[in-house]
């Protein structure tokens, strides 16, 4: 009874807090500029199923892909067991589904146990990769402080979670064989779960009945508490990608990667300049008089909502940066850092707006305070980062928006580019050649 109430409070509390934090993130993402990504739903579903659910792009690197798949599969399948835990937690029963499901129950739990063993192995391998092997993409300069702690903490949580599952099932197995489990006794002497029917007796076989009950309860409560902790940790962590990977891949850019957006506001002005008969005071065709927007992006609110969703989806895996030509040649630019800074800045901007209202300005911005001009100008627009990202994030579009801001709003750019642009405007070529010489090659 008491435990049922405690359980209920924990459940409601943790789902409530989780929902509140997810709501805040949603609000933050909607601070971004509009962008229509609702076309072609069939292709979008397909992309989501392949890339998020099927993890297609992960398999570019098979070893981490398989380890990651173990954890992912264990995570998804364990949710089934969670249903029973929740029902047991409220009703005070123990293994309520077992009598009814019979052999199928044994199969499901065995499946969970096997995946948990694999996840256990994967977790240890990942901890070793991060902390012992010194793989370059995990030790770049942005992977310090919270980013590093976050990555290790998640793995540690996973480790604890799996340990709890085995404590719970292992101790219960021994109790059951002694006829002392709280689960309904079907007279078969063993649950028959693939893993714990062996490791249960091996680890806990020599313990007293009392000790076993304590271990079983620690495992049970530990498991469910870890789930609640995990759930509420998600919105503060790169681990949020387990949820956002789905919408983020659904709203992927389906165009060719080389196609950059054309700024519509510029199109209108250029048309006016080129058409002497146009009426400069005519209302825009779509009727809506848009408030003048900044060209490009200085702060997070100048980016599209998709870029902001990208930022929250980033797994900080660093595949983008390890494929980036600028990063590989020692330049400051790291597309992962672009995504991490965008997220960090958005968190601050979102909190400011909730506290002080929409007009509040803290005097800071994503460009300059978080991302430097030097980083922005080092990009070759090669799309390697976009290609590599396992959850279809587009760091390049953020970089391009910042270039637009620098060039069109502040006229700030490397001096050679000023010359290049002047050449295009004056001679129709990025170099100083006369347009009348354009066909000279024919006779040379």
């Amino acid at each position: 009874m008491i435990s049922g109430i405690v359980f209920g409070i924990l459940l409601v509390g943790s789902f409530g807090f989780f929902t509140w934090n997810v709501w805040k993130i949603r609000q933050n993402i909607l601070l971004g500029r509009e962008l229509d990504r609702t076309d072609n739903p069939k292709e979008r579903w397909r992309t989501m199923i392949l890339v998020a659910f099927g993890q297609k792009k992960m398999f570019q690197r098979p070893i981490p892909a398989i380890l990651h798949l173990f954890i992912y599969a264990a995570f998804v399948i364990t949710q089934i067991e969670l249903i029973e835990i929740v029902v047991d937690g409220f009703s005070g029963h123990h293994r309520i589904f077992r009598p009814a499901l019979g052999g199928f129950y044994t199969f499901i739990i065995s499946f969970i146990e096997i995946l948990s063993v694999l996840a256990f192995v994967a977790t240890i391998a990942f901890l070793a990769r991060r902390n012992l092997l010194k793989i370059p993409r995990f030790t770049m300069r942005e992977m310090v402080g919270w980013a590093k702690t976050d990555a290790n903490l998640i793995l540690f949580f996973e480790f604890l979670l799996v340990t709890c599952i085995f404590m719970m099932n292992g101790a219960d197995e021994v109790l059951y064989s002694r006829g002392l489990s709280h689960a309904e006794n079907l007279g078969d002497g063993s649950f028959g779960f693939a893993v714990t029917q062996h490791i249960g007796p091996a680890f806990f076989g020599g313990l007293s009945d009392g000790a076993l009950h304590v271990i079983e309860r620690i495992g049970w409560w530990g498991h469910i508490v870890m789930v609640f902790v995990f759930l509420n940790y998600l919105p503060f962590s790169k681990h949020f990608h387990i949820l956002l990977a789905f919408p983020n891949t659904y709203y992927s850019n389906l165009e060719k990667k080389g196609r950059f957006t054309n700024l519509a506001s510029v199109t209108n002005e250029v048309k006016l300049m080129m058409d002497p008969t146009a009426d400069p005071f005519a209302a825009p065709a779509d009727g809506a008089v848009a408030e003048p927007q900044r060209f490009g992006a200085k702060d997070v609110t100048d980016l599209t909502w998709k870029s902001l969703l990208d930022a929250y989806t980033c797994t900080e895996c660093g595949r983008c940066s390890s494929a980036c030509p600028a990063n590989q040649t020692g330049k400051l630019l790291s597309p992962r850092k672009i995504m991490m800074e965008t997220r960090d800045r958005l968190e601050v901007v979102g909190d400011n707006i909730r506290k002080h209202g929409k007009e509040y300005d803290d005097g800071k911005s994503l460009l300059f305070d978080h991302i430097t001009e030097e980083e922005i100008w080092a990009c070759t627009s090669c799309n390697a980062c976009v290609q590599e990202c396992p959850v279809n994030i587009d760091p390049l579009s953020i970089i391009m928006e910042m270039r637009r801001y620098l060039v069109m709003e502040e006229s700030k750019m490397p001096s050679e580019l000023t010359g290049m642009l002047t050449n295009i405007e004056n001679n129709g070529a990025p170099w100083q050649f006369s347009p009348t010489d354009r066909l000279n090659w024919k006779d040379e």
Partner: protein
Amino acid sequence: MSNLRVPTMAELMASGETAEILFWVGCSGSFDDRAKKITKAIVKILNHCDVKFGVLGTEESCTGDPAKRAGNEFTFQMQAMMNIQVLDGYEVKKIVTGCPHCFNTLKNEYPELGGTYEVIHHTQLIQELIDSGKLTVQGGTYKGKKITFHDPCYLGRANDVYEAPRELITKLDAELVEMKRCKTNGLCCGAGGAQMFKEAEKGNKEVNVLRTEDALEVAPEIIATGCPFCNTMMTDGVKHFEKEQEIKVLDVAELIANAADL
């Protein structure tokens, strides 16, 4: 000296003829000494196959790609609108480009501004010519030579064209060797995104040197590309390692033109 036939669209119009396809030469192909050779190789192929093409000549202007990648949307759209006026004036339907950057911009970014054309890269056109039997190449010149292909970002990742240039290389009876990073994983030469026109930011290496290292690993006799900028970058990279005697950097169009003895 040149016996190339390069009619301009204006000339064709004056004599009442039409072109099946417009050859968009590009700034690099028009003005850069190395790239002009690639342009001529493309023209030789077009002439040899009697393709009815035209160029804009002095009416051609930068597509605006470098301006756009540098963040100047105004200059880009001005260029685009002016070019679209010219192209539409000649009722152009199909365009072949000698440069992946022109290719990408014309193909992907002009339609929204009112300029919709069928745009192909020169390697795709050459492949069409071979497939339709208009052009035959024998191995001869390049038979058995080790050739590696460097994917231009704006042809490969940006537009998913990976096979056309490779099929042309295999037509030469050459040994196509792939670098460890190729196709979707290809490493940039370092020129894109307006980098061609500025100094690189501070780092510990030049991108083209890193990419040339990839190429040297497979010990090719020829590094083939399909982009005048990649060509410059890889040529400089090969010079950096003082390998210019052993390794040539050539455009796929040049390989085909040489092999077909044009």
